[in-house]
C-alpha cells in the first residue's frame, strides 16, 4: 500500500485509540468523581461524543485536533467547575438528585452513545476494513487499470505496429504497384514500339512488294516498247531521244511530246512510232500505283542494238 494510505490508516487507528482512550478515560474520570462523591455535575456535563467517522485523513486530523482542544477546554472548565461545585455543593444538593437522574439518563444515553460509538467504532472498523478493502479493491482496480492501460498500451502499440506494418505494407504495395505500373507501361511502350516496328516492317515489305510491282510494270512497258521499236541500224549508238508520254488509266497513250531530239530524225521517228504502236501500255490497275505511270519520261538509245555488218 502506498505511504498515504498507510499513514492514514495508522493515524486513523491511532486516533481511534485515542478516542477510545478518551472515552474510556472520560468514563473513568467520571467514575472517579462518582466515587469520590465529587459533584455529579460532571455527570451532568454532557459527554462529548467524539464523532470520528471521517475517512478523510485530514478530517480525522482535524477531529483529533478538535478533540485535543476540547479536552483542554474541558479540563479548564472542570477546574472552574470544581470550584463552582465547591461553591455550589451546598447550594446544589438538590440538583444532585436531578442531576443524578439526569446523569443516569445521561449514562443511559452515554451507554447508548457508547454503544453507538462502539457500533460506530465497529462501523468505523468495518469502514476501515471496508476502506482497506476498498483500498485493496482500488489498488486491485488500479492494478487492473494499470494492467488494462498496459494492455491497452500494448494493444495500442500493437495497433500502432500493425498500423505501421499495414502502412509499410501499403507503401510496399504501392511501390510494387508503381513498379508494376512502370513495368506495364514499359511493356506497353515496348509492345507499341514492336507494333510500330512491325507496322513499319509491313510497310517496308509492302513498299518492297510495291517496288517489285512497280519494277514489274516498268519491265512490261519497256518490253512492249522494245518489241515495237524498229531500231535504225545506221545511227550513232550514243544518240538519245527523249519523249514525255501521258498515259490514261488503262494504258492508252494520251499524247507524246518530244522533249529532246537526238539530232537524227530517223531515230526520233522510230522511237515515236514505237511509243504509239505500244498503246495501250501495260499499266497497273490499282489507281494509286497507276498514278506513278501517268507521266513517263522515256529516253531512247539504240545502244543494245546489234548492228548488221
Amino acid at each position, binding site marked *: 500500500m502506498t505511504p498515504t494510505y498507510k499513514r492514514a490508516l495508522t493515524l486513523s487507528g491511532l486516533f481511534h485509540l485515542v478516542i477510545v482512550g478518551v472515552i474510556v478515560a472520560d468514563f473513568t474520570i467520571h467514575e472517579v468523581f462518582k466515587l469520590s462523591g465529587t459533584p455529579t455535575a460532571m455527570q451532568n456535563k454532557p459527554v462529548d461524543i467524539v464523532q470520528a467517522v471521517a475517512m478523510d485523513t485530514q478530517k480525522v486530523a482535524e477531529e483529533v485536533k478538535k478533540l485535543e482542544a476540547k479536552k483542554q477546554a474541558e479540563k479548564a472548565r472542570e477546574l472552574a467547575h470544581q470550584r463552582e461545585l465547591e461553591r455550589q455543593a451546598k447550594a446544589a444538593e438538590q440538583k444532585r438528585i436531578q442531576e443524578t437522574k439526569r446523569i443516569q439518563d445521561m449514562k443511559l444515553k452515554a451507554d447508548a452513545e457508547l454503544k453507538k460509538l462502539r457500533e460506530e467504532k465497529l462501523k468505523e472498523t468495518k469502514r476501515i476494513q471496508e476502506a482497506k478493502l476498498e483500498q485493496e479493491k482500488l489498488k486491485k482496480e488500479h492494478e487492473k487499470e494499470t494492467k488494462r492501460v498496459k494492455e491497452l498500451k500494448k494493444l495500442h502499440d500493437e495497433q500502432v505496429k500493425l498500423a505501421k506494418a499495414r502502412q509499410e505494407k501499403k507503401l510496399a504495395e504501392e511501390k510494387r504497384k508503381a513498379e508494376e505500373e512502370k513495368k506495364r507501361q514499359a511493356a506497353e511502350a515496348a509492345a507499341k514500339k514492336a507494333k510500330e516496328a512491325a507496322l513499319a516492317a509491313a510497310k517496308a515489305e509492302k513498299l518492297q512488294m*510495291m517496288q517489285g510491282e512497280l519494277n514489274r510494270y516498268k519491265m512490261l512497258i519497256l518490253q512492249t516498247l522494245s518489241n515495237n521499236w524498229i531500231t535504225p541500224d545506221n545511227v550513232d549508238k550514243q544518240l538519245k531521244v527523249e519523249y514525255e508520254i501521258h498515259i490514261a488509266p488503262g494504258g492508252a497513250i494520251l499524247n507524246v511530246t518530244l522533249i529532246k531530239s537526238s539530232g537524227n530524225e530517223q531515230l526520233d521517228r*522510230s522511237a515515236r512510232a514505237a511509243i504509239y504502236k505500244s498503246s495501250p501500255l501495260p499499266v497497273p490497275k490499282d489507281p494509286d500505283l497507276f498514278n506513278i505511270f501517268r507521266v513517263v*519520261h522515256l529516253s531512247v538509245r*539504240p545502244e543494245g542494238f546489234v548492228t548488221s555488218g
Partner: protein
Amino acid sequence: MYRKLILAFAFLSASAHATLSLELTQGINSALPIAIVKSSLSDVIASDLKNSGRFRTIDGNETPHSVNEVNSLYWRGLGADNLLITNVTSSGSTQNVHVILLDPVSRNNVLLDKTFQANNMDNRRIAHRISDLVYERLTGEKGVFSTKIAYILVKELGGGQRRHQLIVADVDGYNPHGLLTSSQPIMSPAWAPNGREIAYVSFEQKRAQIYVVNVVNGQRRLITSFPGINGAPEWSPDGGRLAIVLSKSGKPKIYIVDLAARSLKQVTFGLSIDTEPTWSPDGRSLYFTSDQGGAPQIYKLNLANNSQERVTFDGPFNATASVSHDGTQMAILHRTGTGYNIAIQDLRSGSVRDLTFAGHTQSPTLAPNGRMVLYATYEGTRGVLNLVSTDGKVKVRLPSQEGHVQEPSWSPFLS
C-alpha cells in the same frame, strides 16, 4: 494507305510532277512496215522496197488520194508504220507525180509531200524514183533503185557457138539493154563513176583487151592491149584512172592507167598473182586479191608509199573485193565449208558475216549505198544473178533472159 507509298516513291521522279523515267536501249531489227496505196506505180515501189531488206510491205484495200482521206486507224490496224500515196496525173506528154508519205501511227504526221514532173519517164522509172525518195526519207540513206547494173549474158547458140552480150539493166533486172554483142567473150564490166561509161575486157581480137564503152551512145575506145592478161578494169573514184591487171611482166600484176595522160604505172611487184583491184572511196588505196600469203586473200595497197597490208583473215580464201562508197563495208567471195559464198566484211571492225550459204557464188558487187550485194550464182546449170541485202534478210533472184548471166557490176548513183 498508298499515299505514303507514293511519297516514298518520290525518289523515282525527277520533277515535282512525279514523272517516271524509263530508258529504252534495245529494239528489234525488223523491216519497217509500209503500206503502199494501190496505184500504177505501187507494185514496182513495193518490190524495190522489199528487195532492199529494209521494208515489209502491207496490203490495204482503202485508196486515199490525199491526207484528208486517210483513215489512220485503218492503216494502223493493218500494222503499217508508214503509208505511201502516189498520184500520177498526165497532162499531155508530161506526167505530174504527187507523192505523199505519212505516218498513221504518229497522228498522220506527213513525212513527204512532193510533186514532180516526169518527162518521158516510163512508169518503172518514176516508181524507182519514188522508191528512192521513200527509202531516203525513212532510212536516212540514199536509195539505189534508180541505179543500174551491168552484166554479161552468154547464150549458147549451138554448135559450140556462143553469143556474149554486155547488158545494162535496171537494178531489179528489168529493162535490159544490150550494149555490146560479141561472139567472143566479154568479161569484167566495170561502171565508171559518172555512170556513163563501162570498162570491160573483150576477146574479140582473140586476145584480151580493155575497152571503155559509152553507155548512152555506144561509142568505145581501146585502153590497153598488152600481151597476156589485160583484165579486171576498175575505175578510180574520180574517174581519171583505171586499175587493171596485166601479166606482161610475168605474173599478173596491178597497174594503173591514167586515162588523160595515157600513161601506165605498175603498182604491185613480185612473184605473186595480184588481181581484181578495186579502189578505196578516197582513191588513195587499192584493195586487191593476192596469193602472196599462199592462198588468195585481200590486200590493201597504199598508193602513196606503196605499202601493203593484208585485210582478210577469215577463212582460207578471200577474193573479189567490192568496197562500199562510204568505205566501211567490203563484199567478198569467201570460201567456207559449203563452198564459195558471199560475205560482208566490216572494214572498221574486221568482222565477217556470211550472206549466202549454198556456195557456188562469184563476182560480188556492192550497191553504192552498201546495203545490197549483187552476185552471180547458178540455178541448176544456168548462171543467174541474185540480190541479197547486207543484213542477210532478203535474197531475190533477178529476172534475166535466157542464157548464163554472170559478172555483174553495180553502177554508181546516177543523177
